[in-house]
């Protein structure tokens, strides 16, 4: 099995390489470049042209690509043109935000989804089950964005005021608060986006869990246990629940990938300064060094997530083995 994992990792490299080439070509062909935003009647064209030359923007794309890859191999991920900082510094500022939001959101996802899914499965066919399914469908039907907007208008200071308007932390607290206070404040800022982000993931898990529970309920070993006289609660807890949770655990990899990927929309609505808004900004400002690295990063994360799912699945379910 370790051989397979290693093989998967090795295959990852050419895959990432391919993606990076595609992204790079895409970026180079976009109308406008990093200096477009500086158009200003006070800036003569000759200066802008000179700056282009200096920044190497006039080189053919394969040349720039080679420079970029070469740089990456020695740890130099390029400089952001908009932030005038090394790309790693720029991303470093934001990565904690996205990461913490993702983790928080995953936590909430499972917190909400597992009880709901189990309940729906256990009481399948009843009104409770129908209610949960309907909730799931409605949540599925509403585009994430609309959900986010609704949340803002309900819970932010514009509505009930339970949560702040946006941002990741309050500067005042950051300046004057204890680390614990800062942590709480950050949590406070992240709750609304995390809930919005998690709502869609919960649906897949609820359905999966529900289906699994229903399956197990009708299975042979459960019937056997019942006929032996084992109390319902034990049957449920020991047999059904544990076995149902297994595929859910394997889903975590995909959930990770989805959460980080889907964050772009959410971050935009909540003005949350994470990698998603960084990506949007860098596309708008044609700051390609940053955009390329972010895309690579997410691709890597997605691949990792899928791999993680497969590995967990193999570990917990002996029936499946990676070929």
């Amino acid at each position, binding site marked *: 099995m370790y051989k397979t994992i290693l093989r998967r990792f090795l*295959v990852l490299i050419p*895959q*990432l390489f*391919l*993606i990076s080439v*595609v*992204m790079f070509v*895409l*970026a180079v*062909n*976009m*109308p406008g470049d990093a200096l477009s935003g500086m158009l200003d009647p006070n800036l003569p064209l000759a200066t802008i042209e000179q700056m282009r030359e200096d920044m190497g923007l006039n080189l053919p794309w394969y040349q720039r690509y080679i420079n970029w890859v070469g740089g990456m191999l020695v740890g130099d991920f390029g400089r952001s043109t908009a932030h005038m900082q090394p790309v790693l510094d720029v991303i470093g500022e934001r990565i904690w935000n996205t990461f913490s939001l993702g983790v928080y959101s995953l936590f909430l996802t499972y917190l909400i989804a597992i009880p709901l899914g189990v309940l729906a499965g256990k009481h399948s066919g009843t009104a409770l089950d*129908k209610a949960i399914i309907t909730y799931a*469908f*409605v949540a*599925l*039907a*509403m*585009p*994430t*964005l*609309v959900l986010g*907007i609704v949340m803002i*208008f309900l819970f932010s200071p*514009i509505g009930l005021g339970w949560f702040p308007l946006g941002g990741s932390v309050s500067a005042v607290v950051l300046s004057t608060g204890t680390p614990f206070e800062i942590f709480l404040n950050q949590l406070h800022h992240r709750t609304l986006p995390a809930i919005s982000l998690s709502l869609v993931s919960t649906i897949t898990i609820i359905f999966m869990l529900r*289906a699994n529970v*229903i*399956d197990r309920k*009708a299975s042979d070993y459960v019937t056997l246990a019942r006929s032996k006289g084992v109390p319902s609660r034990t049957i449920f807890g020991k047999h059904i629940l544990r076995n149902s949770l297994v595929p859910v655990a394997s889903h975590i990899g995909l959930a990770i990938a989805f959460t980080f*990927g*889907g964050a*772009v*929309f959410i971050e*935009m609505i909540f003005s949350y300064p994470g990698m998603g808004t960084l*990506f*949007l900004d860098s*596309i*708008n400002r044609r700051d390609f060094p940053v*955009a390329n690295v*972010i*895309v690579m990063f*997410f*691709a*890597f994360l*997605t*691949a990792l997530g*899928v791999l993680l799912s497969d590995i967990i699945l193999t570990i917990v379910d002996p029936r499946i083995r990676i070929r």
Partner: protein
Amino acid sequence: MEQNTISLENKGLEMALSTKPPSLFVLFWRELKHDAFAFISLFVLIFVIVAVYAGAFFLTSTRDVMSNNLINQNQSPQDSGSLLGTDSNGRYVAPLLFVAARNSLNISFAVTGISFIIGLVVGVTSGFYGGKIDNTIMRIVDTWTMIPALMFIIAMISIADQRTVGLFILFLTMFTWMARTRLVRAAALQNCNMDYINASKTLGTRNSVIIFREMLPNLVDIVVANFVLSLAASIGMETGLSLLGFGLGMEVPSLGTMLQAALQPVNLQFRWWTWAPALILVVIIMLCINFVGNALQRVADPKQRYQ
């Protein structure tokens, strides 16, 4: 007596051999009869789709729904004399809703349809032929899946000189075909290991005949169920992108562009008619699709079927 038994047995055998398994439609109908939600949803869905297409056809051939008329902007239903008032461009919301819904549905059908055709072709090839072909194809699918879809779509739309509908469909399809392929391939693999395929192969039937006549019909249930469910996903994607401003151009209304009005507090609070109809329509369509799609899925999976 003996003769009767034998003839009865023969008759039984005959009947058994001549009765076909119930068709997809019959199974589906059975399922529907026992699931009130799905039943209602199906009819609502059909009604909405027909109404939208008919209404849009009628409207675009008789008037200019899209003309700007700023003087009339933002009139409530009472003021404007029309059922749903006008939006910020002075366009009447009600006819616009028909055209927008039709556009959204068109795009979703196109995206889902095309990605399905690709998925079927690639998936069946991969699953049926197996081996090296399967491996190569799956490597490609894997790589493509790794690309962060949203980011690429945003980047590509920023590139495009012109935001045509065709381009938009292309972009969406580019990132949805992988999941279909995987699904079809899994089903194909399952089927290929089954005896009836092996029997046909032993008999020497041509591959294409095996695929088309024997395997495909068995894939139909799964494929149809997934098709319907992914319609909903396509609508969701298109709406989301349009809301953000990465959707269609100015002249092509869609449910997503109509929802953009909800992004402003003034509209949200004072001018419900600019965004609420679109929202309700989106929710209804997606809910119905989901209920119907789930019913179809239960049909495809004998374990979950209503017995």
